[in-house]
């Protein structure tokens, strides 16, 4: 187990280093010029050059990269060219917002997907299978932005139950916070639930068809234990992996959803940075996103090995 975790950790760090390079280059390949944007459309060449020099934009890329990494390791992600504020500070302010959104979305997704997937598998080929399966197909097909607008139209404009947009910190007003977060979290959660439900269904079907389920029944165990303990434990192994991978897709969903519901999270910051050609800001937010993705994958691998003893020992022996 220890070796397995260490090895996974090593791979994660390597991935992170490679992704910083990709981020750095990709941001610079974007069309547009930060110095020009900062100086304004009609600024003269001298001002633009001065800004370049001030932000080190006239240095060769490898130098810029090493400077960026060097600072990043000390927790300094630079100053946003757009806002003039510390990027690390901006990220720290926005991270909890996005994190809350993501956690709520996953909770909603899991709460919908696991019971429905299990139900569909146990009652395969009946209405209790077809209804959730069809529902998940709809959930998969509906784009985030459309579902978001639909929810706003229904619950804010027509029914007037929920505020259409904005953000209130949970510490300030839990009700205000949740009433604003429930719609964006549902938008993300429903999309995720659709994927998870299908995975859950097929994983449960596979588990239920296996020999050890026959053994469990031959022991005289109740169907509740056979399905809820013996099959579920094995099905979860697959579902946890998929959930981890889907969290990456969730991040891209966050960008759009935060834009629709005007939530000041990382997704909105990503888009704002792109529009303002804010290299430092964009680099920072993408770096954080990539790190989150890598950490999630690491945690998924570890969880997977906890659920599946074969992996744990197999890797430990090597």
């Amino acid at each position: 187990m220890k070796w397995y975790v260490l090895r996974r950790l090593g791979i994660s760090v390597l991935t992170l280093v490679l992704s910083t390079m990709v981020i750095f280059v990709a941001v610079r390949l974007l069309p547009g010029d930060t110095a020009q944007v900062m100086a304004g459309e009609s600024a003269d060449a001298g001002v633009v050059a001065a800004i370049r020099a001030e932000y080190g934009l006239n240095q060769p890329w490898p130098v810029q990269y090493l400077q960026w990494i060097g600072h990043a390791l000390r927790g300094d992600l630079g100053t946003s060219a757009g806002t003039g504020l510390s990027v690390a500070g901006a990220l720290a302010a926005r991270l909890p917002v996005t994190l809350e959104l993501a956690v709520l979305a996953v909770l909603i997704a899991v709460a919908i997907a696991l019971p429905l997937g299990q139900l569909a598998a146990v009652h395969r080929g009946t209405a209790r299978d077809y209804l959730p399966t069809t529902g998940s197909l709809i959930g998969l097909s509906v784009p985030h932005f459309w579902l978001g607008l639909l929810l706003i139209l229904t619950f804010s404009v027509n029914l007037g139950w929920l505020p259409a947009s904005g953000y209130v910190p949970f510490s300030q007003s839990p009700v205000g916070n949740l009433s604003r977060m429930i719609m964006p979290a549902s938008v993300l959660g429903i999309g995720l639930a659709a994927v998870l439900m299908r995975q859950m269904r097929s994983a449960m079907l596979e588990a239920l068809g296996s020999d050890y389920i026959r053994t469990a029944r031959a022991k005289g165990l109740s169907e509740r234990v056979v399905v809820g303990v013996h099959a579920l434990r094995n099905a979860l192994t697959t579902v946890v992996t998929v959930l981890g991978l889907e969290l990456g897709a969730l991040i891209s969903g966050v960008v759009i959803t935060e834009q629709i519901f005007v939530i000041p999270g990382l997704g909105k910051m990503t888009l704002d940075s792109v529009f303002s050609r804010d290299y430092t800001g964009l680099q920072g937010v993408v770096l954080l996103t990539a790190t989150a993705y890598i950490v999630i994958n690491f945690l998924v691998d570890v969880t997977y090995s906890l659920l599946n003893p074969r992996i744990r020992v197999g890797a430990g022996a090597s």
Partner: protein
Amino acid sequence: MTPRLAVKDLSVRFGTDEGEILAVDRMSFSVEPGEVLALVGESGCGKSVTAMSVLRLLPSIASVSGSILLDDTELTTLSAAEMREVRGRDISMIFQEPMTSLNPSFTIGFQIGEVLRRHEGMSRRQARERAIELLELVRMPAPRSRVDEYPHQLSGGMRQRVMIAMAVACSPKVLIADEPTTALDVTIQAQILDILRDLRERVGTSIVLITHDLGVVADIADRVEVMYAGHKVESGPVDDLFENPQHPYTVGLLGAVPRPDLAGGIQVRLQEIPGLVPVLRSEPEACVFAPRCLRATTECREAMPPLELLQPRQHAACFHPGSRVADYSEGVSA
């Protein structure tokens, strides 16, 4: 003596996309307390289906008719909840595939203990202690440390021991062993059979042994039921049946087994039985073995031979019984 388990006129049909399949047709057999009964036949002749239907573990596409009596309890009419009380406590089962029959996500101690917690109301701690004893009983090396291991850490033979430990945890009245040694190598086979024999003596469990391996039958069984295409074709005490088989299918099965004990040169070549077990769609009107049988005559193709007492303790369903060896090299008479 009243039989421990009495199966009477058991028929099993499967509704499939290609129509109905008759897997078992009016099969009857019984097992006395402490007796080892072998159900023998080729793959696909209905042995496993018979066993699974006793525990009512067949999928819902199967329809089962007939009577299954455990002592005085009719199992076919029990409710699902009552049947769960029987499974694992009164009748338990060992399966052919030890590699896949244990849940990979739980320790073997948990899986053995589960039966005890379910049927004997033991606590987790008690069940674990008892599981260690049971592992000792099935001669698992180092049971105290093995109890916390996962199935993938064990060899096939050890997994089958775990399956047996699980099956005998509640000292069942009947143990159904479906090809328990088929997936194991020969030395392990002998040990597993030894364990089963030991259990029969110690606990008095009746064993229904399903196998195609006549060596195993000779080793452990008291009586044999030979099945072919869902039908019983011959039955009798193991010695009589091996000595003097009556049905040509039994003769053929015995002819396909190497017999080093007959090294005198009586049997030079192993004989195979050409053809395959047929899949029945409805109740047959003629002998099911006739298409593969050298003795078959018009009579065999027109009527179903009844199961008759042919030797003092031996029944066979054949119009032309006898133990003479058929010579397939001359071809099946059409």
